[in-house]
Structure formats: structure tokens, C-alpha cells
């Protein structure tokens, strides 16, 4: 009843192929964007920005990237943390070497550098498949983190090995550094994520996205119908790494402000993003957002519940939190292996027929 598309006639091919072809969808998404851009920045405070919203946006961005690689092209990667590190360190080097460069450009360039690195580490995917590839991408993870830890040039020989993001402005508002207002930082991330989510949606609907999906579904068959695996796989690695690199740059510059490689970009980051993608739904742009929201909110919710409501000790709560997250993940995989995107679809179906299911 709420979601009925009856009476909405599509009169052109363009209308038929629109991303949001139904009025209700357009309305919901539009409302969401209006609230996200127009209302939230004025209400936001430091806690909300740091603990929830910016974290959510950064991980949504990383999840978009990994979803392109794993969800659309079928290449499982466990190197996300390493690629995020590339993005972060690239942006750090750029921002300190070229202080007058526009910050947006810096973020984009870091994405580009990460894309190049990602292509190099994607080369084995032409020979190696499945879990062998997944483990091989761990090489990228460990090597890159080691590199940023050991080679002084990357962190400008700072004695602590930490990198610190210098304050940068955008339209007169500080967006990085300790003085930056949460609203400005949030809006900066949000704009990036919105634009690139739209881009990702369109890339995956186009020729190149279809060739990725063909490779994912069966690479030999895809080869036979004339898709070049080299091109498809490497482009997936490049685009995916571009996204992840931007996520890494935002993660370091806008969210954390300081970072050191062994903690901030360790393998748990890779798993975390992979969880987001799987729980959100493989091969779904919306899923990346839903998964990110779930994985960011669930630990906070569990922690607040344990410590605040049930009065557990903090250290006990930490163990229980770990257990609960493990359980939730397993539960989710059992109940809906296709992820939250699929749940959303089912919900839409239900809403459409409600209250008369037949």
C-alpha cells in the first residue's frame, strides 16, 4: 500500500533505466539526502561526528570499494587495510609536500595512487583464484603496513612514526586538524560518499560493471564471450582501490587526524570492511551503506547496553562484546546470507502488498 508503483507509467527508455524509477524511492532518497545535508550538520556534535557519523561514512566508502571488487567482480580481497594505508599515506605525503594544493584534489590523487598500487597487487588474480587469491592479498596487507612502518620517507621521518594531518580549509571552514568543526568534517565526507556512491552505481550498471559480473559468475564463460579477464579484473582492482584509497585518506585526515600503521590499518580493518560488505550484501551499493551502519552501530549499541543498562564491568563487557559480534555475524549469515540489501528488498515486497498479502 505504501510502496505501490501502480499508475506510474514509464514512457521512455531513460525513465525505465533510472536508478530510482519509482516515485516512493525518489522521495525516500531525496528526504534522506535533505536531512543528511540540510539538517544533520547543524545538530551534529563531536561525539556523534567522531563515534558514529564520520566513521560510518568512511567505512561506507571503503565498503563501496571492496564491494566493487568482491561483490561485483568476485575477487575476494583481505588487503583492504593495506590499501587504506596507501590512501592515508599518499594523502599525507601530498598534503605535506604540496601545502597549497586543493584538499579535494589531494584526496582524489591519493585515490589514484592507491588505484595504481591496487593494480599491481591485483596482478596475481590473473593466475590465482578463490581462497588462494584471498590469502595472496594478505601479502599486500602485511607488506604495505610494514613498508609504512619501516621506511621513514613515508612518515617524513617523524620520531614517533606517527603521521599527523595538518589543518586544511575548504570554503573557509577547517576540515582537518584538531580545530575543525564536526559539521564541516561531516559534510566533507558526506559529499565524497554521495558523489562516489552515485558513480559506483552507474559504473556497475554500465558495460564495465557487467563485464565484472560476468567474470564473477564464471570467468571462463566470460572469457569465451569476449570479455578480457586482464582488463576486467585489473579495472576492478583499480576502481576498488581508488575508493578504498579515498576512504583511507578520509579515515586518516578527517576522522582520526593522526595515525600509525600497525594499529590503524591492521588486518582487523580488512576483516571489518569485509564484514560490512558481506552483512550488507555482496553486489549491492545500498548494502554497503546498510552494512556499514550495522557494523558501526552494533558494537556501540552492545557496549552501551552492557555497561550502561546491565552494569557490567568494562573489561568483561569488552569480551562479551567480542562474543556478541561473533554471534551476530554468524546469526546474520545463517538467517540471511545475502545480506541486509536482500532484507530491504523483502521488506519492499511486503510493504507493497500490505495489508492484503494476496
Amino acid at each position, binding site marked *: 500500500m505504501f510502496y505501490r508503483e501502480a499508475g506510474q507509467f514509464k514512457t521512455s527508455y531513460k525513465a525505465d533505466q533510472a536508478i530510482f524509477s519509482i516515485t516512493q524511492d525518489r522521495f525516500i532518497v531525496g528526504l534522506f539526502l535533505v536531512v543528511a545535508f540540510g539538517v544533520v550538520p547543524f545538530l551534529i556534535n563531536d561525539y556523534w561526528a567522531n563515534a558514529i557519523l564520520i566513521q560510518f561514512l568512511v567505512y561506507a566508502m571503503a565498503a563501496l570499494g571492496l564491494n566493487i571488487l568482491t561483490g561485483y567482480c568476485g575477487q575476494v580481497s583481505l588487503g583492504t587495510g593495506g590499501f587504506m594505508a596507501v590512501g592515508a599515506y599518499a594523502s599525507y605525503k601530498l598534503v605535506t609536500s604540496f601545502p597549497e594544493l586543493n584538499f579535494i584534489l589531494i584526496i582524489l590523487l591519493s585515490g589514484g595512487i592507491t588505484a595504481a598500487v591496487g593494480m599491481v597487487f591485483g596482478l596475481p588474480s590473473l593466475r590465482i*583464484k578463490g581462497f588462494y587469491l584471498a590469502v595472496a592479498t594478505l601479502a599486500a596487507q*602485511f607488506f604495505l603496513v610494514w613498508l609504512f612502518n*619501516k621506511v621513514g620517507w613515508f612518515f617524513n621521518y617523524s620520531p614517533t612514526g606517527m603521521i599527523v594531518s595538518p589543518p586544511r580549509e575548504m570554503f573557509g571552514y577547517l576540515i582537518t586538524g584538531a580545530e575543525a568543526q564536526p559539521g564541516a568534517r561531516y559534510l566533507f565526507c558526506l559529499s565524497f560518499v554521495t558523489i562516489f556512491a552515485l558513480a559506483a552505481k552507474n559504473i556497475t550498471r554500465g558495460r564495465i560493471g557487467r563485464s565484472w559480473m560476468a567474470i564473477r559468475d564464471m570467468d571462463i564463460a566470460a572469457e569465451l564471450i569476449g570479455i578480457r579477464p586482464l582488463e576486467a579484473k585489473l579495472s576492478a582492482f583499480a576502481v576498488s582501490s581508488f575508493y578504498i584509497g579515498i576512504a583511507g585518506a578520509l579515515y586518516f585526515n578527517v576522522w582520526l587526524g593522526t595515525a600509525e600503521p600497525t594499529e590503524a590499518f591492521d588486518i582487523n580493518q580488512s*576483516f571489518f570492511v569485509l564484514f560490512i560488505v558481506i552483512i550488507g550484501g555482496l553486489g549491492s551499493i545500498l548494502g554497503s551503506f546498510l552494512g556499514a551502519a550495522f557494523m558501526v552501530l552494533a558494537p556501540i549499541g552492545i557496549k552501551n547496553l552492557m555497561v550502561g543498562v546491565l552494569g557490567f564491568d568494562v573489561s568483561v563487557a569488552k569480551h562479551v562484546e567480542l562474543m556478541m559480534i561473533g554471534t551476530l555475524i*554468524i546469526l546474520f549469515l545463517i538467517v540471511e546470507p545475502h545480506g541486509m540489501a536482500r532484507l530491504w528488498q523483502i521488506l519492499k515486497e511486503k510493504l507493497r502488498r500490505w495489508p492484503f498479502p494476496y
Partner: protein
Amino acid sequence: MLFLLETVISGLMAGVMYSLVALGFVLIFKASGIFNFAQGVFALFAGLALYDFIAQDGWFYGLFGFVLPVWLGIIATMGVMVIVAWLVELLVLRHLVNQEPIILFMSTIGLAYFLEGLGDMLFGSDVKPLNIGLPSGAWDYLLDNYNLYVEKLEIVAAVVAAVLVIVLAIFFQKTRIGRALRAVADDHQAALSVGISLRMIWVIVWSVSGFVALVAGVMWGSKSGIQFSLSLIALKALPVLILGGFTSVPGAIIGGLIIGVGEKVAEVFGGPYVGGAIENWFAYVLALAFLLFRPQGLFGEKIIERV
């Protein structure tokens, strides 16, 4: 020269330790096609449980006022691992039959988180020195006569690993259950159709890999104490796996040895030039180099692809 020899030997011994963990992976992957990331945590969990049964400051002592002798403790831990295996089958695997490999893989990561939290909560997260009477220190004979430093514990580990592989080989080749396991590994559906209970087999194979994890936990625990970082040896075992092939028991052993030696030699002779601590990634790069020539690992079954 002597130094090189020493490095190689210590690499071989480290390799044996990796192999012990990799073995557990291979067993499960062979029988159920599941890439069990929780294997390292299994080792940690088994070690913690064993410590609990035999040490004065464990739970068991608190409850009953006495500790078990080591051999009984090991049997009791084995019981715990069988229960864990059974629960895993009952609560997780049973519901995930026919899912894609990546879903199963993720579920084992969830399992790893769960067991990690549970182990920490039950047994505490401090480092526990596990002492079950294995010899330690250098092997005097070699040290005196050849001036070669070899840890006794590492020799023991090598012997244990050898025995373990032989026992597993006999188990797989000669027993009824072993044959059933191989049948399942070959083809789930065909195995089902001749009346092999898949669930039973899964419980058995997870128990066996729980046993392997126990051995690994004991060895690592005796070496460096039982601590959280034990669960990270799973990451050390992964390059061993892809090098040896996911489905090959001998591959796990040989792969472990190659990785162990390669890593140690590279760290000792190459490490200082590039800043050290290359152990973390060198194994992966080494495995990757092998993979480029043999995509299914050294001993893995040839991957035949059809449209």
C-alpha cells in the same frame, strides 16, 4: 656456515610449528570445503583449557580443589574440543550447508571472534606459562660436539609433528571413518548417497582438527606461553597453506618447512638491509611467488575448470 646451518635448523623447526596449525586447516578444508579461520583460536582455546585443567590457578582447581595430571588434562581438553566441534556443527555449520565458500569463511571468522571473547572471559587474558614437562633449553650433545644451538623443545615438536602426520595418514587410509572422510572430501553428494552421515563426518573432522589444534596449542604454549597472540598464528599458517595446497597433508608439512626456512634465512640475512621485521610479509610473498607457477599450490589437486 655454522650460523647458516643454525638458521636453517631453527627455520625448519619454526616451520614444523606452522605446519601443525596448517594441518588443522587442511583437514577441515578437505572434508568440508570450509576455510576455517578459527583454527588459530582453536589452538589458543585448547591451550587455555588445558592450562586450566592442570594448573594451580585455573578454574578447575578453584572448583574441585585439585588439578588433573597432565595426561588426564589432555584427555579432558580433547573432550572439550569434541564438544566445541559438536556445537559448531550443531549451531553453525548445519545451517550453512550449501552456502558459498565465502559465507562459510566469514562464519568461521565470527566463530573466531566468539571463541576469543569466550576464552578471554573464562580464562583471563594474561600470559600463561604452560609447563607439561616437555624438555626445554638447548640440546647439549649438539652444542658440545658441534657448537650448534638447537632447542630441545623444537626437536620434540618435530617428532610430535611426524608422529601426528603418520597417525593421521593411517587414520585416513586404513580406518573405516577415514575412508568415509575421504569419500566426503571427494564428493559430498556421492558420499551421502552411499549412506555416509555428513553431519557425523563433520563433527569427527572438526574434532580431529581440534585435536591438531590442541597439539599446536601445547607446542606453542610450551614455547612462548599461552597468550592471545597464539590466535594470530593462523595468519602464519595461511602462506603455508597456499604454498602446500589447501587439500594436501604432506603439502602442509613441506610448505611449513619451506616457509619456516625461507622466512628465517630472509630475516637473518636480508632483514638488516631493509630495516628488519620482514618475517610478517616475507612468507606471503614467498608463497605468492610459488603460486604464480603453480596456482593450486605445490601439492594441491589440479584445478580443472569447465564451463
